[in-house]
């Protein structure tokens, strides 16, 4: 610990803390514009200059490590003058006229800094130069006229999402923020994660969805969990008049503020038509009805069928709802087909492996932070579970190496040190080849002398070049903390031999051993793991089922599901939005969308998180859990509401953090 004095107050901070952070931790305000608690200090704006006893000139507090006995002053007349000059120069550089800027009036850090210094005017007037405005991006606008060149957006692009799209061009006051080699943002390598917009201190990066819809002080903020995928990123949902204005990443959560476009922008744009009343089929028409009548109709049609009802639930539903769903249909009605719409495709293979072997094999997402070599197989992290991809991409400049195995084009190909393109469906042979190559190079951490297959035989099957496999084997086995990330591409195979081969590779390269678990799967939607633990992962087959109950929630309806339901005579759909599925239904029960209900999510590495409702559902619409409970009551079924116990009946693929 370090003791230092700021403005006469002695404080204690941890080693390595900057003076600015030391002040922050002790509620001493040092103004800054370029510094952001979640980004590497940059020392660009010079607003945080402080006087340090014994030093000849003022120093920027954001880049100055605190040291023992330091005596610091932050409010001397000289420093106040210097801040005033810095702000004057900033205002003189661009067009910072406030009246027509959407952040003016509370959300602009530049304006707030000027207010804090009691600036009533600009001592130096602007230089009246037009800077480019880039409106080519679907989600935000880059207005260089409002930019103060703090480079927070550039650092966020690099450090939060690892995308390295934003940078600067030109020098001095002509400097502008550009994408790639100054191409329009909409045509650049930008992946629309929006981290840059979230950290911009001025109105230079304008969020199209939320601009002019109110300042932060007008919005209600709810801390919640993204339901976009199994990563379960922390989010803040900002609402006004029961509408989502914007979604921002929660800096306090594991994702530390980072989100992808599916978490940040897409849910705000939701334009699908809502269902606001129960509906039943009368002749060829779906007509609105009451809940009472809907439940009575359901009872009449379902009760006599008993086990002949197939039931499917979306894995976007909360843990509570999924557990109740299972209890209702499996235990209550004794149905032989109770599963999720994912049908275990992203989870069943590894869950079955664990059923057989008895203990968790998967590690935590956190292992990616320290991984020095990552093997991606059967997953394209540029298209799904993007934030996990960011964890990898942002470490690449720090030396983390990446290997991508994918028979098809993969969004992470460009970042990879090695791309292996084996023949499709030869995953087992690929793993066998890597295992054999590691052993041949004498690098096996397990001390194994012989692989499952010979290198030559395996290469012949997968069609890879020996040299490439050798490079892969060396890169993996020679790294200190390798991690294997796999996805649906592997688990969908349903082939236990593939799983066995992958685990053997994890062992020989030292990714997984008694100490470490450097192997994990990204799974599917928000509650994919919970669905797997509840055993909702059978392949959906229509046998002699006379009816189907689909608890769709607000999930997207696939053609595949519609096709499978073709032969079902009576279809009950519990859904938020109108879809091809509800059109086909005989009975429709309207439910909340994700942001309207409070419930738990169990993310891919077993971390249980409570997502809070941010919106009030339209009248007549109930939560997924309540509807399932109502259905149970109508059918006279007692459901087990101990979801906690239900989750722990099966050994999890990853240690649970309940």
């Amino acid at each position, binding site marked *: 610990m370090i003791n230092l004095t700021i403005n006469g107050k002695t404080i204690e901070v941890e080693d390595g803390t900057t003076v600015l952070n030391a002040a922050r931790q002790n509620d001493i305000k040092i103004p800054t514009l370029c510094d952001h608690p979640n980004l590497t200090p940059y020392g660009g704006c010079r607003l945080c200059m402080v006087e340090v006893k014994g030093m000849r000139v003022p120093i920027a507090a954001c880049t100055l490590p605190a040291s023992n006995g330091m005596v610091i002053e932050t409010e001397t007349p000289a420093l106040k003058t210097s801040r005033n000059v810095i702000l004057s120069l900033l205002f003189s550089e661009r*067009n910072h*006229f*406030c009246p*027509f800027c959407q952040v003016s*009036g509370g959300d602009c850090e530049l304006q707030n800094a000027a207010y804090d210094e*009691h600036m*009533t*005017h600009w001592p130096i*007037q602007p230089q009246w130069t*037009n800077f480019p405005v880039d409106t080519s991006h679907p989600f935000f606008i880059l207005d260089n006229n409002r930019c103060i060149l703090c480079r927070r957006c550039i650092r966020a692009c690099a450090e939060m999402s690892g995308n390295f799209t934003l940078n600067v061009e030109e020098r001095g006051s002509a400097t502008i923020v550009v994408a790639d080699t100054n191409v329009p943002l909409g045509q650049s390598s930008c992946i629309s994660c929006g981290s840059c917009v979230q950290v911009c201190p001025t109105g230079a990066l304008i969020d199209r969805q939320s601009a002019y819809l109110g300042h932060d002080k007008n919005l209600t903020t709810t801390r919640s969990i993204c339901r976009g995928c199994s990563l379960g990123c922390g989010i803040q949902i900002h609402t006004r008049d029961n509408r989502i204005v914007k979604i921002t990443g929660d800096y306090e959560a594991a994702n530390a503020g980072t989100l992808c476009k599916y978490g940040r922008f897409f849910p705000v744009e939701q334009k699908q038509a809502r269902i606001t009343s129960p509906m039943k089929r009368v002749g060829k028409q779906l007509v609105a009805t009451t809940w009472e009548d809907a439940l009575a109709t359901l009872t009449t049609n379902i009760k006599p069928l008993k086990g002949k009802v197939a039931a499917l639930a979306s894995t976007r539903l909360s843990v509570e709802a999924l557990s109740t769903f299972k209890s209702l249909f499996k235990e209550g009605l004794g149905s032989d087909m109770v599963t999720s719409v994912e049908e275990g495709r992203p989870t069943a293979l590894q869950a079955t492996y664990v059923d057989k072997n008895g203990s968790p094999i998967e590690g935590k997402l956190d292992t990616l932070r320290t991984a020095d070599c990552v093997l991606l197989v059967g997953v394209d992290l540029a298209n799904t579970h993007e934030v996990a991809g960011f964890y990898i991409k942002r470490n690449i400049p720090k030396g983390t190496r990446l290997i991508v195995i994918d028979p098809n084009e993969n969004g992470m190909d460009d970042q990879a040190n090695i791309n292996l393109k084996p023949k499709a469906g030869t995953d087992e042979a690929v793993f066998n080849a890597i295992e054999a190559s590691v052993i041949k190079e004498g690098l096996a951490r397990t001390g194994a002398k012989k692989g499952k297959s010979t290198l030559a035989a395996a290469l012949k099957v997968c069609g890879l070049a020996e040299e490439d496999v050798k490079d892969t084997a060396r890169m993996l086995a020679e790294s200190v903390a390798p991690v294997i990330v796999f996805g649906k591409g592997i688990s969908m195979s349903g082939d236990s031999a593939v799983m066995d081969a992958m685990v053997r590779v994890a062992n020989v390269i030292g990714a997984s051993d008694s100490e470490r678990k450097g192997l994990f799967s990204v799974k599917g939607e928000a509650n994919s793991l919970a669905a797997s633990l509840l055993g909702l992962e059978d392949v959906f087959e229509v046998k002699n089922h006379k009816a189907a109950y689909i608890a769709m929630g607000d999930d997207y309806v696939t053609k595949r599901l519609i096709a499978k339901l073709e032969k079902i005579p009576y279809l009950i759909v519990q859904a938020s939005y109108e879809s091809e599925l509800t059109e086909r239904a005989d009975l429709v029960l309207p439910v909340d969308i994700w942001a309207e209900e409070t419930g738990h999510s169990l993310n891919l590495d077993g971390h249980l998180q409570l997502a809070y409702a941010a919106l009030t559902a339209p009248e007549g619409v109930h939560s997924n859990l309540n509807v399932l409970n109502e259905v149970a009551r109508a059918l006279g079924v007692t459901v087990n509401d101990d979801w906690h116990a239900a989750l722990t009946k099966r050994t999890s693929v990853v240690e649970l953090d309940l």
Partner: protein
Amino acid sequence: MTKPKISSDWMAGCSGCHMSLLDIDERLLEIAELADIRATPITDLKEPDESGVDVGILEGGVNNSSNEEVAHRMRSRCKILVAFGDCAVFGGVPALRNMCGTQEALQRAYVDIESNEANSKIPSDPELATMSNVRALHEVVKVDLHVPGCPPDPDVIYYVLKELAEGRMPDMKDENLHWH
């Protein structure tokens, strides 16, 4: 003690700041009690007294030779000059034309705009004021107090007028400081 004399005028602005002044409602009577309100665009007198006033208030930026005259006249006839509203303080919305230049702005407004008749011309009567870049008031004359805002909030205007009327210099900070 005689009441302090207050006078105001407007230049390149939208008169919104004076409208906001009227928005102080019944408190206007209180100010009229405390101060002697002289020439303003909304009273009968049209020029500040030649003998001088205590407080001169100017709305709007300085956009042409006529505005310059108004600015210099007010400056020479008042003790405390107040730049009133964002246009007087910063240049404001009219100053956006500085980005393209006066000539291009005139061309667009008088000739190119779709609603103009064919053969429209930029007015060139020699009696018209000569246009310039739009400047903040402090670029033209010395300003003693800046009251930013687009427009300044009525509560801020009341605070400023009351302080000035009672012989104090307003302290422009915290809830009284808004640029909008």
